[in-house]
């Protein structure tokens, strides 16, 4: 690939050097890296790094946990209403029959 005809600048002085002395690298603004990565993520040419995925996954998992808890709570409440007898006779504790409580205990 390399040509063998590197030009030496003829500017009338021997110490002017040539193009080989020119720097070949220069670091751009660090913000450019984020810009490039963001555009690649937007085009779905890259997947977010693990750390970012974890950051996204955490609130999703928390929301799912809360949803599960609430649905369990509602299901439990619904079942309890379904199973409970419509009327449970209140224990007879009237003053007219003081032994009623004792009989109830025996009955149980």
């Amino acid at each position, binding site marked *: 690939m390399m040509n063998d*005809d590197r030009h030496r600048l003829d500017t009338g002085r021997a110490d002017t050097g040539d193009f080989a002395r020119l720097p070949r690298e220069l670091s751009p603004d660090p913000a450019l890296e984020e810009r490039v990565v963001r555009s690649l993520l937007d085009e779905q*040419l890259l997947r977010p*790094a693990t750390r970012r995925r974890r950051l996204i996954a955490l609130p999703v998992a928390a929301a799912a946990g809360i949803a599960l808890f609430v649905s369990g709570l509602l299901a439990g409440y619904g079942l309890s209403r379904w199973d409970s007898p419509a009327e449970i006779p209140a224990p007879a504790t009237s003053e007219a029959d003081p032994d009623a409580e004792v009989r109830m205990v025996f009955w149980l």
Partner: protein
Amino acid sequence: MRDSSDSELVVQVLTRGDETAFRTLYRRHTPRLYRLQLRFAGGRVADAEDLVQETWLRAVRRLGTFRSDGQLGAWLRGVAVNVAREWMRRTNPDAARRDDTDITGVVDLSHAVRFAIDVERAIARLPTGQRAVLVLHDIEGFTHEEIALQLEIAAGTSKSQLSAARQTLRGILRPQRTDEEYA
């Protein structure tokens, strides 16, 4: 990850879309791509950044065509030249103002650095076609045949553009480089 070869990182980007692998490739190759695009853009930082971004976007889209036994750096520079060529055709960089040219970015003004700044400024003042050929031939080391292929011009045109570029450069640099200045 940082010690992985380019080919290994390319595979990770291709198969998993691995962001970390891409960032390693980016940090490894962007300084050279950026300098190249900055020269094509005549020293305009904003244009050079756009060109680098487009270079990486296109490179990742076409990463499947990169042969793992090849040199990724050379392949990327080929992509960069294509991007720059299209940009030069699409826009009219010669008509753009050059007030925002930021070539220096240095504090130490030794002779070598001053020489580099002078030459970079002179290159930035060249017409687009001459600048592209001069950068590719004299700095990047491509042959006229390779330049002809990359810029979609005849090899003879590349030679005449180079000759004109060198002549223009001499005209720009001679008045600046006096004995008093570099004594």
